[in-house]
């Protein structure tokens, strides 16, 4: 039995709803001036006009998908597998960057000198701790996930990539900061 693909219909619908929400809610409530404004006794274009036009593009595109492309032959869709993957990946990235953000300050608080981490954010070796921990976690974690096993090789590759990045971005330049050292 041949089922009509629905991907374009759903995508179009989502875009249309999104566009209406932007133009009807987000833009009016989150801009200071309207579509047109009177400034210095002249009518001029307000801050709301451009985003409203962007919303119109999204909505019109959605409408086209729902109407003229509804029965197109090729309708790629997001499967549950894809969604699971991307959620898992983002979760991993959240963990990675939390580790990156807090490893340095934690290490300084536990075993470091008196100064807070902020003062040491450009002092070796403290400045590398967070980046190294998070970076190795990211690279090694992904390699291990794809290989479906943890290996020493994956850890070594993670370390190698981190060291290479430190060598490229940090050692030659005085005024560059590796993550997370601009935020601390």
């Amino acid at each position, binding site marked *: 039995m041949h089922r009509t693909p629905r991907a374009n219909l759903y995508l179009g619908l989502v875009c249309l709803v999104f566009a209406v929400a932007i133009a009807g809610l987000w833009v009016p409530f989150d801009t200071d001036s309207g579509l047109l404004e009177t400034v*210095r006794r002249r009518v001029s274009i307000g801050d709301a006009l451009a985003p409203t036009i962007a919303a119109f593009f999204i909505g019109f595109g959605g409408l086209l998908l729902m109407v003229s492309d509804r029965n197109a032959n090729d309708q790629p869709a997001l499967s549950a597998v894809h969604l699971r993957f991307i959620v898992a990946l983002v979760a991993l990235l959240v963990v990675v960057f939390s580790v990156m953000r807090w490893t340095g300050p934690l290490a300084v608080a536990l075993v470091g000198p008196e*100064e807070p981490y*902020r*003062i040491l954010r*450009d002092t070796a070796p403290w400045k590398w701790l967070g980046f190294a921990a998070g970076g190795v976690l990211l690279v090694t974690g992904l390699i291990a996930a794809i290989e479906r096993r943890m290996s020493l090789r994956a850890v070594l590759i993670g370390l190698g990539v981190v060291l290479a990045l430190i060598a490229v971005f940090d050692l030659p330049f*005085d*005024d560059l900061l590796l993550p997370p050292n*601009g935020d601390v």
Partner: protein
Amino acid sequence: MKKLLLAAALSLSAFAANAADWTPPGPIKLMIAFAAGGGADTQARLIAEELEARMGWQFIPEQVTGKGGLNLAAAIKDMPNDGSVIGMVVTESLGYNMRAADAGMTPEQFTPIVTTAGFQMAVVSLSSKGWNSFADVVEAAKGGADLRFGTMSPKLSDLAYLLGEANGVDFNIVQVRGGRAVMDGVNAGDMDLGFMAGIQAKGVAAGDLVNLASALSEPLQQTPDAPTMADLGVEFVADGYFMFIGPAGMPEDARAALSDAIAAVAEDESTKAGGIIKKAFGGASVIKGADLDALVASDYEAAGALLKAASE
């Protein structure tokens, strides 16, 4: 009385010693409110470079652009005030812009440190237009020409509007992003005249551009004969400076040490930073300490009157 003087002298010398002794607790984050690669950004980075060489301090420059310096102000407001975070804006940021935005920020939330250079703000047009002074512009407009007046900030747009109003003409005010864009627009013929804050110096010297009026309280250095805003019937001016700021409550020793060091570089024309300041603005304009506090406060106050005048 004697005791008091002694105490004052002591505290003064202690203060001076402190300023000389002060060193930043760590690397200094230098926020820059101007687009990378532009004249203002270059000035900030060159000052930092020179200070690294002179003082051994370390700077980490960072772009925080947008909203006429208000994005930088919002970002720096809650940072540590020990001198380890400073930012470069224009006086207009804490003056007109902060007043007009009305977003809960006031100049009291910041420590003004020092100014480096004052704008040579002028009304400029192509010399091929045939205008020699602002009176010629007014005449052309009265003769029926639709004139486009380029500006680069809301404050300047207000001034352009008031200039027109005071002279009985109506300009089409075209506001663009950055002084460079005004110059490009005037050069390309997209605008008939516009405000320029110093980048016109080379073009005026070469004879391509002409300073029609000074937008300052004083005559221009390059074209002293051009009328000032007051001559043209406008009681507001576009005087403005590049200014370094920090979060409120910065200790006096840190503030003094930073302002002295930055001023020394800006005033030294043999440094790269001092050199470009000389070229574009005719030399450094250093204002610091209580004078600067007073300037920032009065700018903020004056902005209210300008906003009111331009909305009438």
